[in-house]
């Protein structure tokens, strides 16, 4: 546990835990809305923020937060109004964001793409004290939204049309989800990197789904996986001198594979238990139903 003696490792671990909590907490709503790749898009847009931060000598973390929030709001607006060619508009936003980042960082005095690398793939040793302060504040916002408004966000992500009829402010909640996702991207940027952050939003949720039947359980398991892999990845990265972002993402995918392997026997056992609980068990063999209506599966 000697890594805990170093201040940079303490900062890195704190940042890693916050990323492990926030990324799946937002990601679950994105996955539920089938917008799993939104985090990736925001990551691209955030590059412009990092570049601008260097150019204007501002904090790249806060600048990236500002730009990615603007980008996320723009994406949500495109989703509302640009129904037909929305995908093209999004593609332009993503690649424009990436190109903007590379351009601005090269315009900055003494800046080159090398400065960008730690933001793209994550880095432990460069997490500064002011980064940690920013990450803590942003993570607090994300946790407050994703837990505090979980019922509202669940309803809107599950069935937008129905949510409207319950009187929920659907547009405001959609915008809030987009903004929260953008904030999460910048929380994760220093540890996992902009190009890999989306994996930590999506893969823990996908892995948790292998075991769970409810939204609440999926949420809890996904966050548990997130925290485990970010701590595991950060410590591995310290001892083996490998990049933290890549280590964390590979560990997450490993967790997905292991849980998927575990899930198959679990599902079989559940099916057997459910069949045993039924008063009239399903017949072991197929039989021709007495009438077409009786089998109940013929739909309109």
């Amino acid at each position, binding site marked *: 546990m000697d890594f805990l003696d170093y201040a940079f490792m303490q900062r890195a671990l704190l940042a890693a835990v916050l990323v492990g909590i926030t990324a799946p907490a937002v990601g*679950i709503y994105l996955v539920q*809305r089938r917008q799993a790749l939104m985090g990736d898009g925001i990551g691209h847009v955030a590059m412009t923020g990092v570049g601008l931060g260097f150019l204007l000598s501002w904090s790249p973390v806060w600048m990236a937060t500002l730009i990615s929030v603007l980008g996320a709001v723009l994406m949500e607006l495109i989703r509302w109004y640009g129904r037909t060619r929305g995908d093209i508009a999004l593609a332009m936003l993503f690649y424009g964001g990436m190109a903007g980042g590379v351009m601005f960082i090269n315009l900055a005095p003494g800046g080159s793409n090398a400065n960008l690398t730690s933001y793209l793939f994550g880095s432990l040793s460069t997490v500064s004290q002011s980064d940690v302060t920013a990450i803590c504040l942003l993570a607090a916002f994300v946790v407050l939204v994703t837990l505090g408004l979980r019922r509202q966000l669940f309803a809107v992500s599950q069935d937008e049309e129905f949510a*409207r009829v*319950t*009187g929920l402010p659907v547009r405001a909640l959609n915008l809030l989800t987009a903004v929260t996702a953008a904030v999460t991207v910048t929380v994760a940027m220093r540890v996992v990197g902009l190009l890999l952050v989306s994996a930590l939003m999506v893969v823990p949720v996908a892995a948790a789904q292998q075991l*769970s039947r409810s939204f609440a359980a999926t949420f809890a398991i996904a966050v548990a996986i997130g925290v485990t892999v970010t701590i595991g990845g950060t410590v591995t990265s310290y001892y083996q001198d490998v990049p933290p972002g890549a280590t964390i993402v590979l560990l997450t995918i490993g967790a997905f594979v292991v849980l998927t392997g575990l899930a198959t026997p679990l599902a079989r056992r559940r099916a057997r238990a459910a069949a045993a609980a039924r008063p009239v068990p399903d017949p072991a063999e197929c039989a021709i139903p007495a009438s*077409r209506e009786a089998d109940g599966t013929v739909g309109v």
Partner: protein
Amino acid sequence: MTEPVIALRGVRADLGSRPVLRGIDLTVHRGEVVALLGANGSGKSTAIRTIIGQVPLSAGEIELFGTPRGRFGDWARVGYVPQRTTAAGGVPATVTEIVSSGRLSRARFGVLRKADKEAVRRALELVGMADRAKDSVDALSGGQHQRVLIARALASEPELLIMDEPMAGVDLASQEVLARTLGEQVAQGTSVLLVLHELGPLEPLIDRAVVLRDGCVQHDGPPPRAVGQHALPGHDHVHPHDHEPIRTGLLS
């Protein structure tokens, strides 16, 4: 005549550049059960979706409980059952979690109290799904899924139910449960507007039928009586929808 719970006057709506509703008048009075009938593409679902605000109006006005829809905020009085989509959300959810969403209109700040949880349980009992409360909705059949969506609409204890094809793709056993549930609600004074492809097992409940054709009201009056083999008990509607003939002779 009592104050209408739903009133549409001269409603027009476009999807893209295509006019789908071309000036619809439709009223549902308190305690009334009104069926919206018509062939595919006649504008039934669009009419429902203008009422809930999912499709914008290009002309005309809509009132809910006497209030213009734009200013209407008392959504707990309305229960909505959307057309069932086979695609569930991307994350598993239990029956209780889904039905609880329907109670949000009565819950302050999204906090469900004991009374709210009780209402969710009652709604599940009404549709005969209380024993599946903790199951994932992915494990349900089409008919059971539809029962869950109706329980979600009933969870806010609404005075008005709006349903889009509640019987589509529902097995006969579930159809009977749904017809009985709806009958109980109507007996308690709930008003209902529902889109139907055909009257089916709900026929005895329906007070009035409005038939749409090409975005216009073609018939507004007593429900058409089923004739021929459509009138046989247990008749199930299985013809493919894509090439469906417009059965105006039957419905008008």
